[in-house]
């Protein structure tokens, strides 16, 4: 073989391409077919296994369901890739492992253009599809809703306070009526914080000098926690406060009660 041929990375060396020439996989008529079969079975088992895991906290907003579904889709797309990598590694190690004292070299395969085109194209299509899906979900989550209630969230080291400008109420616990879309307008008095209710799935930094917004429609009654998710100093890990999602009627009662207490303390 002359120099030029050996130097050109991608030309496969013809005789070695024939799998039948490799005695280690000669007995198997379809080494790849067998591997694909194992891979498909392992992927199905893997997908079922990861979908059984209860990953998320309860769904307490309309967006939560969409995000959880998106994650399931990501898992379903990911497991076969991981299984593929694992099967090739394990199969190769089992089949092609050197016997003690084996000084031979492997097959001088430098590349295979068709294979390389395939493993550029398939991942490209997969990530493109996932990106489009992600974009659609994102647009959906952030779409403006009718009848939105505005809640102003203010972070400071190390607590949250909430103001309801439409209801003319301020509070240190976050109380929200069920099924009413809310637009949170988030701000901070000092450093960065991050407003996050894991059960709602959505979060946003509170940034000095900016007002950030997220939209949430709580749809499950219950008591949750606002968690600060951006390192904000000494008390960062204790910056957790209650959120209550209540029936709309109860919310109205709470608003009236808050107003009354505010007037009392003012008067």
């Amino acid at each position, binding site marked *: 073989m002359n120099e030029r041929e050996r130097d050109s990375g991608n030309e496969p060396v013809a005789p070695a391409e024939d799998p039948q020439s490799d005695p280690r996989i000669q007995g198997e008529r379809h080494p790849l077919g067998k591997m694909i079969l194992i891979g498909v079975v392992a992927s199905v088992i893997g997908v079922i296994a990861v979908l059984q895991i209860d990953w998320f906290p309860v769904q307490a907003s309309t967006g939560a369901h969409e995000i959880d579904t998106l994650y399931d889709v990501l898992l379903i797309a990911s497991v076969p890739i991981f299984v593929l990598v694992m099967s090739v590694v394990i199969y190769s190690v089992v089949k092609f492992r050197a016997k003690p004292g084996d000084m031979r070299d*492997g*097959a001088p395969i430098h*590349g295979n253009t068709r294979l390389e085109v395939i493993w550029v194209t398939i991942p490209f299509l997969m990530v493109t599809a996932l990106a489009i899906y992600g974009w659609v979900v994102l647009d959906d989550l952030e779409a403006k809703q009718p009848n939105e209630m505005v809640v102003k969230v203010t972070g400071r080291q190390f607590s949250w306070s909430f103001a309801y400008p439409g209801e003319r109420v301020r509070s240190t616990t976050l109380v929200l009526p069920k099924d009413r879309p809310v637009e949170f307008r988030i701000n901070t008095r000092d450093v960065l914080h991050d407003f996050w209710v894991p059960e709602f799935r959505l979060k946003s930094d509170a940034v000095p000098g900016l007002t950030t917004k997220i939209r949430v429609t709580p749809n499950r009654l219950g008591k949750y926690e606002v968690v600060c998710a951006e390192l904000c100093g000494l008390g960062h890990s204790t910056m957790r406060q209650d959120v209550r999602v209540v029936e709309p009627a109860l919310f109205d009662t709470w608003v009236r009660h808050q107003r009354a207490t505010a007037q009392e303390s003012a008067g």
Partner: protein
Amino acid sequence: MTLTKKLTAPGWYRAILGTALMFCLGTGIVLAVRTAYGWDPLWDWNAIITVGALVAAPFGYLIGIGCFDYWFYWAAGNPTRPEDHSGHGATSWKDYFRVNTDHKVIGIQYIVTTFFFFVCGGLMAMVMRAELAQPGTQFVNPNTFNGLFSVHASLMIFLFIIPVFAGIANYVLPLMIGAPDMAFPRLNALSFWMLPIAGVMMLTSFFAEGGAFATGWTAYAPLSTETPMGQQFFTLGVQFAGASSIATALNFLVTIITMRAPGMTFWRMPLLVWANFTTSLLVVIATPFVAGSQFFVLLDRSLGTHFFDPSAGGDVLMYQHVFWFYSHPAVYIMMLPGFGIISEVISTNARKPVFGYRMMAFSLVAIVILGFTVWAHHMFVSGMFPWLRVPMMITTMMIAVPTGIKIFSWLATLWRGVIHLRTPMLFALGFITMFTLGGISGIMLAVVPFDIHVSDTYFIVAHIHYVLFGGSVFTIFAGIYHWFPKMTGRMYDETLGKLHFWLSFVFFNATFGPMHLVGIDGMPRRVADYADKYATWNAIISISAFLFGASFLVFLYNMVTSWRHGPKAPANPWRAHSIEWQVSSPPPIFNFDEIPTVVGGPYEYGTPGAVHAVFKEKAPAAAGAPAGGGGAPPPAE
């Protein structure tokens, strides 16, 4: 030697003197300025430590230890001492504590120093896991805890992963391309000696008033502009680590471009050389941005500028944009050299050419380019302009394509090889599987709606440890085992090596795997305390983490005893083709008695009689044969 002579000759005595003198000079400047302005108190220790200890003193140490001697003589017009190469090589352990211009000595200096900081950072992780083993406060207060994870990350990134790759490449790369040394040996020495400054600053920040810097390695403003003195140790430490990194990268670029052996075209370079070439491009272009971001913080803190103070027109998000414009490429700076190591290890131990060599090189270049277009995926919840999120999501996911090419090509390299499952190969295979997991969680994180839920949670902690430990650190272990015989001239203990691999592989997964679960379930990261519902998983994670930490002792024991008493290594124990294995172990002081001539690709396993390079004395025989002859393009130089 008289004391005067000790204090004027380059070395540790003069370094101590220089450090002291420069500290006094810095202090003097502070006192003079404060006197002139009539500021009270005159002795402001924050200012004195910043100017005297963190800025001036390191230069005193660098001058004292002898990094600048030659340049000063030359700049002053004095006769420079002709290079007699007396500084080359190391005959005793003491030689590793002197300024030395031999790339092999510098390589060892880098590796040992960085592993020292790796141990420091690892011990901090152990303390953190002890604290997090159960809810509540047990061992350290929240301030110390915040300091621990900040210093842990900073040491691991700036003092371990980035420079240990520079160390491995320092040793191996000139040998691989058939060069007698790096292009700029004195600059190479300076790069190394700047490194401990950064490490010592980060470690000593624990003794600063108010404790160590506690704002994470990301040091987000405005928290970082308001926290106590310890922050300055990070802000300035990063400058020295960054300068060291940039200087080394320039050195690699020039070395690779100009010093390849005759016949070594770009398409005949081993992939480790390609990997360091692309990494160096990233370092040179990106690192000035992290330096800039930290200078902004420094100026806000020390000189009263308002870069990050919105009440005075500053912009908080600007910090994050500038910071991530470096720090995202930095994750490739921490990964591409590892890709190179894996290509070498897999092809050598599978006895096969690297599958799709050119695509492997092209995908490195693609990652460099795409790597600069994705930084804002760290900022999906930061409150930046919303439209930027979708393009950043798309570019981020596109990086999966070149990365996928690499993973699949390594797999194809295994196919029909003759696989020797030595320790480096085990780490390489462990890397492929774990890095795939890290890559998969990376794709998930790129999808904006999912990222909004998990950003700043333990899911992120899991992801970065899968890519940086299961990814980078596994490649580092693979590289250290692979080139251990070449560097030390002795063989490591294979049984202990395999034990180390299996212990770290199992406990790595047991430690970081469950973090995905608690993260999605709602546990934020960087917390000294957490809600009770995460207690069970955290206890399991902590126990695994201690066993994981203990697995490192096996490595340490193996390295120390093998280096001292291991069996002598032959020149080429793995029967590899690349040039560094064609010289003795350890290599001769000047690498090659004859500069080799490259006559073929670096991975021609399976082709009978194929060689990568020939030495001149053998040349007449080779020149007649077709392998050495006509087809070879002229030397690149």
